[in-house]
């Protein structure tokens, strides 16, 4: 704690604390984790932008099937994450983030083509990533997608908008618990 505390001024820590859902201690912990991904680079310049390949070495992201999409969502410039992007990500995935923030980011993670709608292809991507090495059969996949659309798509436009997604997810009992990184 002593070493990393000298990296940030009191002002910066205060700012970070107001802008994210983390406490000061957690922010310093996040910095420690960020540094551990590439110690040499971060020591030199704390605002360095680490490439996505280094970010995905973090234990939670390494085993997560949605890691590439998560990095894409939180990276401000598209090809790497600075510490602030990383802090943003950890803040959304922390326990302090309210449900609506998590739902919003979950929507963005599941929206693979970035058009603000979850279409059939997005769903198919999600399911494929979830089941990993063992895939569902084509017929099963189609049936599943059809079922989901039937349940969630209230205005019958064959895509899920954010409001429809929110309507579905907010009823899920474990969503808040599962959509978080354990510090």
């Amino acid at each position: 704690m002593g070493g990393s505390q000298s990296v940030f001024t009191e002002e910066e820590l205060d700012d970070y604390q107001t802008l994210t859902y983390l406490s000061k201690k957690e922010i310093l912990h996040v910095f420690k984790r960020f540094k551990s991904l590439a110690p040499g680079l971060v020591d030199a310049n704390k605002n360095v932008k680490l490439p996505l390949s280094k970010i995905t070495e973090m234990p939670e992201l390494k085993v997560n099937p949605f890691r590439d999409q998560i990095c894409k969502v939180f990276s401000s410039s598209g090809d790497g994450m600075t510490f602030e992007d990383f802090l943003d990500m950890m803040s959304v995935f922390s326990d302090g983030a309210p449900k609506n923030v998590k739902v919003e980011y979950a929507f963005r993670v599941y929206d693979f083509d970035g058009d603000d709608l979850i279409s059939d292809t997005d769903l198919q991507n999600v399911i494929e990533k979830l089941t990993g090495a063992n895939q569902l059969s084509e017929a099963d996949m189609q049936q599943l997608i059809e079922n989901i659309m039937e349940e969630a798509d209230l205005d019958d436009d064959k895509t899920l908008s954010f409001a429809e997604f929110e309507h579905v997810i907010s009823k899920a009992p474990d969503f808040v618990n599962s959509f978080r990184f354990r510090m």
Partner: protein
Amino acid sequence: MTAFIVIPMSLISETPLTSSTNSILNTSYYCSLNYTVVEQKGISYLLDFIQGTGWMEKTLAFHGHYVTNLSGAYNLPLAYILTVLACMLISLAMMARYTSKSFEAALLNSIDTNFEYSNKVFGAWDFGLTDENAAKLKQKGIHYDLQSEMMEQTFMRTRMERLENKCALFKLYLVRTVINLFIIFMLGAAAYAIVKVTSWSTSYASSHTDASGTGKWVLLLVQFLPSITITACNALLPLIFELIVELEDYSQAFIIKITLIRTVFLRLASIIVLLITLYTEITCGPTNECRTTVEPACSDIRCWESYVGQQLYKLVVLDFVVAVVKVFAVELPRKFLAEKCTCGLIQKIGPPEFNITSNVLDLIYAQCLIWLGLLFCPILPGMMVVKSFIIFFVKKLSAMVACPPSEKPYRASRINTFFMIILLLTYFLCAVPVLYGIFGIHPSRSCGPFRLLDYMNEAVENAVEKWPLFLSNTYDLFTSAAFSGTVIILLGMIIYYLNTMSKAHNQRANMLKEQLIMEGRDKQFLLNKLQEQDQKSKEKHKPSPGKRGPQPPPRESEKVSPQRQNPRTNDPDEGSFSPPHVVENPEW
């Protein structure tokens, strides 16, 4: 239990019964002297410990040892009976509380079966996982879950088509009836076997009380024969049930339920049959003045309470031994064989699987034995604590080491309610013999703290009579039939009323749900109309380049740089996502 019964008995000395003018006292004294037990040395010591006979019978372990009159003011019979009743009531209270909580949780979860598939997909992944093996397992679990859901759906669809044909439907019902009859027949056969074995075992044991040498080992085997039969039936028949149920063409969820129900019936049936057999043995034929059964018509049982206690004690011991042996002698070797040996047969049987339902049923069975044995064998709860402790670690070994992690996800919430209901059912089943033993059967004259009474509940009544008149009258009022009848009718009416209210609430919830969906549709309709109007008026006034359809969410406002706005005050009502703000939200 220990505090109120065992400790006082072991600490306070007994005032000896002397002959007096009271005839009951005399009889009891004479009978107690007659109540001797064959005690042998050597290996019999250990055997007797396991069986609960011989020297064990006269210890604190069994009902027979406790006496009616302890020096001092401690009323042992009253304490005995009140402790047993209190234990039963406390168990009931705890179970009722747990069941109601899990009912609530199940009900709240079931409201959202609207979004079953969506939740399965969107809420499936646990983002906090960090271990690669755990992640792979989770993926397999998700795959299995989705696949089985899809299979189930396909199955239901094709079944509808298959059963269009009347002939096929008739055949299916015929098959199901035959199978159900077959299962009832098997249960009956198992019950008959238990009855025969128990009665033969009792007659053999009472006629060979002084066996020696190999005879002793034979006696041991015979003593345990009823318990062994019950355990064997409990192990074999569920396997047969599982094989047969394939023929009945049910959906997957229903198969699980019905196999479970049949297994539960089997376990309850075996206990019921054992109890009935014991009852017929205890109450058979004319009894002499010591209230023991006499030969030649019935086997010689000097102290029926201790006898019943012994049977239950043997069941508990056997249960424990079988559980431990099963893990060490069956599951661990199976695991090693599955890993090392590659021959076809071994691979087909495969490594052992940690079957949650059968383990829970084992626990329920053990608890049932405890409830039955409370009255007759006071150290049984203490024994059970030690046994549970050891079994916990043994089963932990089995689950962590012997069995590979299960790829089938286990839906805890739904099935927990079912298990609690079974536990309650078992409780009431066990309460009947205990209550009948207290209120309906005469205690033996030669043993036990109730030897001077005609019925065990008289201990309470005798104590109440010593109270002041007012309290004693109130007690009589509360236990009279008229009062109890009125209370029962009143409770029945309350249940009926609450049931009606709950149905009305359900209807209301459904109505509100439908209204919600209608609102959504109305809103969509109005928005479409608005958009049309908007476009029409725009086309009229200014030909502008087509507006980009749905508005992107305000991405710029989410950055963490110190210059931007505070995400914590990102009021959900301001964003473009909330339905009430009609104008700003063309995409909804």
